[in-house]
């Protein structure tokens, strides 16, 4: 498997007691898959993503990407944050160039790359703007362009559209879906929005809280029609809906 999460547990110290954020999570992800981690708050979905991206060391277990153990963040695996993480003192262009500077890409080449990826996220000609001059949705597009510009293999997205209004969010969902298909990236996407997960995911990893565990993995690869109002979509959505209400705790893969 491309990404192997094996028996990962994460415990945080809370004063004298310990808080179990993740309990022996095992997950395998193929290259090019779009995985949504879905669950209520406190289910450890963000923690799992941060462990996979190398920001949080697991208390137990290992994460391997392409056979290499993840021990710290890597430029090959980019994380998109809910609050964008743009540098407000840099222009859009300079923000997108951030990773290219580390890779010592030549100046003319950088400009070319920035142009290409800004076009991909629908922000042609915004090079000289400052982040503060852009709407939230546009800022997140810049962050996506910045992550794509370093030609990362994997995108970790931590509730990336959580701070956006419903319509902007749907536009960005359409775009990330298209970008994913165009660039064949492996994407791990944390969300608590069922509709978002059903719209985007090849597989939805449904998690439960206290302690954070994988409850079900729902395979949606056969779900062809992702029109948000189509019957297939609504059926799949209802399925997840009832899953989240369920009390039973066996891990089964569904093929819809």
């Amino acid at each position: 498997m491309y990404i192997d999460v094996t028996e990962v547990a994460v415990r945080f110290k809370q004063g004298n007691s310990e808080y179990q954020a993740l309990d022996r999570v095992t997950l395998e992800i193929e290259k090019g898959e779009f995985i949504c981690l879905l669950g209520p708050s406190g289910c450890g979905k963000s923690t799992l993503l941060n462990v996979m991206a190398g920001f949080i060391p697991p208390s137990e277990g290992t994460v391997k990407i392409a056979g290499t153990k993840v021990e710290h963040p890597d430029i090959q695996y980019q994380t998109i944050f809910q609050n964008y993480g743009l540098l407000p003192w840099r222009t859009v262009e300079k923000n997108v160039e951030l990773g290219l500077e580390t890779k010592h890409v030549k100046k003319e080449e950088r400009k070319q790359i920035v142009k290409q990826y800004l076009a991909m996220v629908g922000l042609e000609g915004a090079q000289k703007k400052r982040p503060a001059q852009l709407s939230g949705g546009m800022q997140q597009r810049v962050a996506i362009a910045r992550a794509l510009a370093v030609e990362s293999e994997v995108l970790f997205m931590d509730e990336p559209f959580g701070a956006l209004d419903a319509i902007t969010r749907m536009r960005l969902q359409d775009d990330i879906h298209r970008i994913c298909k165009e660039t064949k990236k492996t994407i791990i996407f944390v969300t608590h929005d069922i509709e978002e997960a059903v719209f985007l995911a090849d597989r939805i990893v449904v998690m439960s809280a206290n302690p954070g565990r994988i409850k079900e993995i729902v395979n949606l690869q056969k779900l062809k029609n992702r029109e948000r109002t189509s019957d297939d979509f609504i059926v799949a959505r209802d399925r997840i809906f009832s899953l989240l209400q369920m009390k039973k705790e066996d891990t089964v893969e569904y093929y819809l």
Partner: protein
Amino acid sequence: MKSIKTVKHVILSFGVLIVIWQLGVKAFQVNETLFPTPGKVLQAFGVLVKDGLPGSTSNATLVEHIGVSLGRFFTGYILSTVTAVCFGLVLGWFPKVFAYVNPIIQIIRPIAPVAWLPFIVLWFGIGDTPAIVIIFLAGFFPVLLSTVTAVVNINPIYLKVAQNFGISKVRTLLTIVFPAVFSQIATSLHIALGTSWIFLVSGEMVGAQSGLGFLVMDAKNCLRSDALLATMITIGVLGLLFDQGIRLGERQLNKRYGLGIGNVA
């Protein structure tokens, strides 16, 4: 419109102040050597600008004294803030080191910079150095501590981004942390500018034979209350100009970088 209104406020407030001052001195028949009229102060100001203080040990004019003071002021202020910001960035980056340094800082900080004067004069003699050292001490600690606080409380997302893009530690400190905390440091730089100007005068009153602080002492020694007040007003006006200048600078920075540097009351 707003600037016209401000000008109106300034003219009115100073106009009223001068009238009260003049009437007060006349009405209570105050001895003019103890408290001179505005007219006398203006006269003294003219003499100070043209020939300097009569009977002074220094024959420098007011403008020359201002020049000397400004030189010390900017030397001290720039030395102090640059060192404080550099140390602050490093200490904020290594909180464990700061935990050891902090107790010493907390003991030195409450000591008024002027209390160091006897040592400073013993070590460096009379001249430019005492005033510069005093300004250094006055500006250093507030800027240092606010820089450390800003670095410790930096939004962690910036560090995550830096890590994610494989930016080295040194480059992170200089190109990510410094700009990220600059708006908070800017407030303390602004305050330090005012404090430094205040302490410059204190420093020059004891440790110098020139400058505005020296002129204050000299006017006192010559029993020239009019020249004394003229010098004091000059100090006040210059302080106001610096404050306005740094405000203008902040506005430019905000316009260019959108850093949201706050206004200091």
